[in-house]
């Protein structure tokens, strides 16, 4: 494709994505029913895990240098990234259910921009949540051993996790086109997230949970993230390979969902 031909296509994608994202973010920010849970749930998990389970840091073999608050912060960050994407899928499914998606499908010069818009909205929502979460974690005394590059790496992983989850949920939403598809979006993400070393390092897990967590790709993201915050980066190459591969894989999944929605009318 020539640059001249690509220009209008890029513009059409951008116009649609920005418009879709604007509506989603507008509704998110102007409705406490959407805004409050998105912020409160990660904070609740953080307080519950980091506060209520802090004595785990005294368990023999728990040697995370930045302490249990930082250890849990990384999990809650990635969890909020993933669930933010899933909740965006809920919104998308609802738009199909009430017919609003037809407005997008009719007006969009490039329908892929619709997916782009939801993804952009999911990221914006996540950034708001992360800002508050990080501020509270720092206020609670979280130790950050990593430097600026490490922190950038940690949030980079979170951004890619958010994108992957959004694209996964979008693919389901456009196939099911009903909010009834919600559990289908949420359950695999929930399962994948919690079959990782959530509360203790991988080395302290045993039995089947250790076996599953060892091969779970999200474990690498979590380990790398914890390495970044501690200033002792680990499994970076594997983590970023997974973090980039998942959105690419789920982009095809979401594109397939869009085609199914287009064919269904």
């Amino acid at each position, binding site marked *: 494709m020539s640059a001249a031909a690509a220009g209008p296509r890029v*513009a*059409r994608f951008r*116009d*649609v994505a*920005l*418009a*879709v994202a*604007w*509506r989603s973010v*507008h*509704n998110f920010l*102007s*409705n406490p029913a959407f805004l409050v849970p998105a912020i409160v749930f990660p904070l609740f998990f953080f307080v519950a895990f980091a506060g209520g389970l802090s004595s785990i840091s005294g368990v023999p073999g728990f040697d995370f240098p930045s302490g249990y608050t930082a250890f849990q912060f990384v999990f809650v960050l990635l969890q909020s990234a993933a669930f933010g994407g899933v909740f965006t899928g809920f919104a998308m499914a609802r738009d199909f259910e*009430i*017919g*609003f*998606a*037809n*407005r*997008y*499908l*009719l*007006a*969009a*010069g*490039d329908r892929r921009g619709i997916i782009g818009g939801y993804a952009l909205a999911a990221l914006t929502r996540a950034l708001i949540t992360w800002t508050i979460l990080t501020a509270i974690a720092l206020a609670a005394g979280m130790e950050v051993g990593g430097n600026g590059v490490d922190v950038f790496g940690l949030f980079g992983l979170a951004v890619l996790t958010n994108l992957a989850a959004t694209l996964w949920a979008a693919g389901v939403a456009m196939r099911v086109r009903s909010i009834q598809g919600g559990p289908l979006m949420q359950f695999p993400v929930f399962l994948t997230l919690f079959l990782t070393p959530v509360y203790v390092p991988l080395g302290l897990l045993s039995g089947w949970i250790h076996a599953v967590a060892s091969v779970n790709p999200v474990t690498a993201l979590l380990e790398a993230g914890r390495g970044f915050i501690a200033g002792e980066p680990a499994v970076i190459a594997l983590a970023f390979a997974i973090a980039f591969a998942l959105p690419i894989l789920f982009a095809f999944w979401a594109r397939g969902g869009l085609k199914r929605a*287009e*064919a*269904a*009318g």
Partner: protein
Amino acid sequence: MTAEQGPDGTGIEVEGLVREFKNGPRAVDGIELRVEAGEIYGFLGPNGAGKSTTVLMLTTLLPPTAGTARVAGFDIVREGPRVRASIGAALQEAALDPLLTAREHMRLQTALHGLGKSERQVRGQELLERVGLSQAADRKVGGYSGGMKRRLDLALALAHRPRILFLDEPTTGLDIQSRTALWEEVARLAAEEGVTVFLTTQYLEEADTLAGRVGIIDHGHIVAEGTPAALKAEIGRPTVEAVPREAGERGRLAAVLERFGPGAAASPRAAAARLEGGESQLADVVRALDSEGIAIETLQLHAPSLDDVFLAKTGRSLEGAEEEEQEETEVAAETVDAG
């Protein structure tokens, strides 16, 4: 971005369009039609006849199973984005977000179409004023009446100055005032701005009032097409209906009327006949009744309606077809429940 002008003008051409749903009947079964640029085309039929499925295909929201169609000169399958850039559509269920205001909807719609920032505001305000929503522009749409939602939906469909407008049962459920206001705006769009309008409706009056030409669809087939006047003239003999002053005279009255043509459906107290010789026989009817000494309470001459056309082409009235479709739906639902 504003509407694109296709290579073959701004009309609609449909050839052998079919849509078949999985495990279901052919909702649209090989329809052919042509809508000229600037024309208002009324697509009339009962619920389930295939009107909305046709609109969904022509607006690229549903791919056809077979056949071709060009909208504004662009193929609906191969040139979907160009079709969409040329058309505006207000579908049966107004696709509105109850959490947004009318102004925010306009902002969203103009942005989706890629209008520049400064143009968005001007165009949005202009359209909101045109449909009479400028006073309510900053209220959330969730609190709007049905008529207001329809008017907003129409304004949104016009955001990018489309050359072709699809309106799928735009006045269903509206009160007469809202309906009349919408009719006036649609007529103005066609007359003053040359917008081609494809309008589906189940209201005979709507098709009769607005449409330059009408296509009547039933069970996925177009059963008649032409101007409302031509369609009525094609089948049409006017009907004379009379109510006798004395109820006991109804039999004699019917016999007299049937001298002028076959009997027709009438209200319980009345008798009616289709005038074989047309309207000019009305004076003869009055003279015959007078000579027979039958006192008449009311006498009416009914011009043929589009319902008569529907009856002639399908063997049932449009209202009857509605009830039939309703029953079919209920039976299908019961079958599903029972299964």
